[in-house]
């Protein structure tokens, strides 16, 4: 047998072992957790759920509504749409400032680059010299030519602005540069802003979820309608963003403070110290689980929960159940409490029971125990506590690229509250997707939104400054399963004035094709065969769809 064979055999490891291997989490109890019960006990609770102001409610449409326009005027509709490149805007409109924009789309990242074994080994700074030599030897065996080639389908965008102050006084303005990303990919998609070549310090602002909801395609064949709000419906073209940004309200919300839930009283049930038998398939206990059952009046009580992975909702009987698998030492979730946050009338007749599996039809009970602590608090404090654990989880185990989230807890928490208010159980017409009240199911980090980088710049009287936004832009594309004409095609698009309050004196686009592409569809007017690689922009939206040169 060869090592390659063994590699394939290892690939057939049992599902439970593969899952289990990633259930590891370093056990640590954050300092702030110790203080929660003290803080919670000190809070004075007075105001009912309807009595708070919505500083930043978020959301762009009612769950279930269509997103964006009905059609798409130009370019393909891609299954994975990356969003357009947007223009710069000012935080406060300023009639004295005019702008000239020159955008360069550079296909340099498409060029295969040579990575030498020496460079590769040298980059492993965490290794000792001896280990690094081992790595180098190993790479040299695999790549006897001394290295390998690597390339990307991103393009390098340089979005340049010449900002002119037409006034007789110096003007200090705050610029806002928008881009599409999710929290998960922020570090890869965040542009760098420079002023006359110097990197600008920026503040990040995040918009709410850029998309809507749709049903689960039940009865689609008969009705050709997809009502409901169980699935996310992302934007498929720039028109979705046009609907989002054209009236300025989305940006205004992104610049304002997040809602504060401090004046919503809640009752918190903290579930700790869970114990039970070890997993034992032979003994018929494959997944020892604890179920917490309680009674409530569904019309007067809303429940948020954290740490549970099973739920039972019986509105007729007025019974709800929440269950969780008992974590073993060293497993993800071990030592982390579960929370039931009660908004409105308190729950009663709380009980718990251990079961051999997580299924609600399981009858086999096992001996288990938990500590349930009831405290009165407010929604801000209670949600913050659960969000802390969730954020910690993202940092420890949820971020598979070993990079700590770079957006910070407060932004994450604010966006979570906003999503909860707009689409969760606190919304007037919440999405079915979040009806179970499970905090960890709120789509905070994975969904696309528009972000803005804010920076302050001064433009001397009668003078101009040059501001650049530089970033790699990923392509829009179709998933291969959709046997469409877009297989192998990458799409990039931009908008000229959408969401901007600047007065533009002209816009141009330049293509640096680097000999890497063949243009399939476009409305720019580039003509590579005739050397036309720079064009004036006069339309609201431009698209460029390309494939790799020399590929069918």
């Amino acid at each position: 047998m060869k090592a390659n064979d063994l590699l394939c055999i290892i690939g057939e490891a049992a599902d439970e072992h593969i899952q289990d291997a990633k259930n590891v989490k370093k056990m640590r109890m954050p300092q702030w957790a110790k203080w929660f019960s003290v803080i919670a006990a000190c809070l004075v609770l007075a105001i009912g759920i309807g009595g708070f102001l919505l500083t930043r409610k978020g959301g762009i449409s009612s769950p279930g509504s269509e997103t964006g326009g009905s059609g798409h005027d130009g370019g393909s509709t891609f299954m994975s749409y990356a969003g357009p490149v947007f223009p710069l805007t000012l935080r406060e409109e300023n009639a004295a400032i005019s702008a000239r924009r020159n955008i360069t789309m550079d296909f340099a990242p498409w060029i295969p680059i040579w990575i030498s074994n020496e460079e590769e080994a040298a980059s492993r700074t965490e290794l000792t010299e001896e280990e690094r030599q081992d790595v180098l030897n190993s790479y040299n065996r695999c790549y006897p030519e001394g290295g390998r080639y690597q390339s990307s389908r991103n393009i390098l965008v340089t979005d340049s602005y010449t900002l002119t102050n037409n006034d007789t006084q110096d003007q200090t303005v705050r610029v806002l540069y928008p881009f599409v990303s999710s929290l998960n990919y922020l570090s890869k998609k965040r542009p760098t802003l420079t002023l006359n070549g110097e990197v600008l310090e920026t503040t990040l602002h995040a918009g709410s979820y850029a998309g809507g909801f749709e049903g689960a395609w039940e009865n689609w064949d008969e009705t050709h309608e997809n009502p409901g709000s169980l699935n996310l419906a992302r934007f498929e073209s720039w028109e979705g963003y046009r609907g989002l940004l054209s009236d300025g309200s989305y940006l205004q919300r992104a610049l304002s403070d997040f809602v504060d839930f401090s004046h919503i009283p809640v009752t918190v049930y903290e579930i700790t110290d869970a114990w039970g038998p070890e997993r034992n398939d032979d003994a018929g206990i494959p997944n020892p689980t604890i179920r917490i059952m309680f009674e409530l009046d569904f019309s007067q009580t809303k429940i948020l929960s954290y740490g549970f992975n099973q739920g039972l909702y019986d509105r007729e009987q007025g019974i709800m159940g929440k269950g969780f698998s008992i974590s073993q030492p060293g497993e993800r979730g071990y030592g982390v409490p579960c929370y039931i946050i009660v908004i409105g009338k308190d729950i009663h007749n709380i009980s718990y029971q251990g079961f051999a599996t997580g299924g609600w039809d399981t009858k086999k009970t096992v001996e288990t125990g938990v500590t349930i602590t009831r405290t009165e608090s407010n929604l801000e404090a209670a949600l913050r506590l659960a969000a802390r654990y969730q954020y910690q989880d993202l940092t420890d185990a949820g971020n598979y690229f070993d990079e700590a989230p770079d957006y910070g807890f407060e932004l994450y928490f604010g966006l979570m509250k906003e999503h909860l208010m707009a689409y969760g159980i606190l919304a007037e017409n919440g999405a079915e997707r979040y009806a179970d009240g499970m905090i960890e199911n709120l789509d905070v980090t994975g969904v696309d939104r528009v972000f803005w980088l804010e920076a302050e710049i001064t433009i001397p009287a009668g003078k101009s400054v040059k501001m650049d936004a530089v970033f790699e832009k990923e392509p829009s594309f179709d998933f291969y399963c959709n046997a469409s004409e877009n297989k192998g095609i990458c799409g990039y698009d931009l908008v000229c004035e959408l969401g901007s309050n600047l007065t533009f004196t002209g816009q141009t686009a330049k293509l640096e094709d680097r000999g890497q592409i063949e243009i399939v569809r476009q409305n720019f007017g580039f003509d590579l065969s005739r050397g036309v690689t720079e064009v004036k922009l006069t339309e609201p939206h431009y698209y460029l769809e390309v494939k790799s040169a020399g590929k069918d």
Partner: protein
Amino acid sequence: MDDKSIVALYWSRSETAITETALKYGTYLASISSNILDSWEDAQECVNDTYKDAWNSMPPHRPSVLSTYLGKITRRISIDRWRKRNAEKRGGGELPLVLDELEDCVSGSGSIEDEIVRQELVKLFNHFLNSLPVTERRVFLCRYWYMDSIQSIARQFGFSQSKVTSMLHRTRAKLRVLLEKEGY
């Protein structure tokens, strides 16, 4: 969205299945692939191919554990791509190191081409995994299934790198003894 609902979307041939899969497992799958390929872009393409395979295989399959079902597809596709790149002298990632380490466990003579022999080996290997202490099993799979770097495993488990290295060495030695005993 829970896995059962996502699988149902595949069965109903709804393209939403892909976007829901991408939302829930995209990062996870990309991490598996990028460990193998050491290239974000190539990893994205392999994840893309995973969606294609998932689309083509559901139905008829109705996986009970969607994450590992998809993960296995990604791992297979990524290793295939690595082999192709390696043939073109453009490999990368942790795989060369992993293969080097796995050489410890095997005789190096002959390949496993008989499907029945392969199935027996899979069974034997899973027995072997069951026999390992929990932590040792997890570390082994993080290295040889997920192809995490030694440094990354050390960080995940809170161990020193040398402890991870020696634990893996011990486990490989056990596996070699077992394989030799069983005539592989």
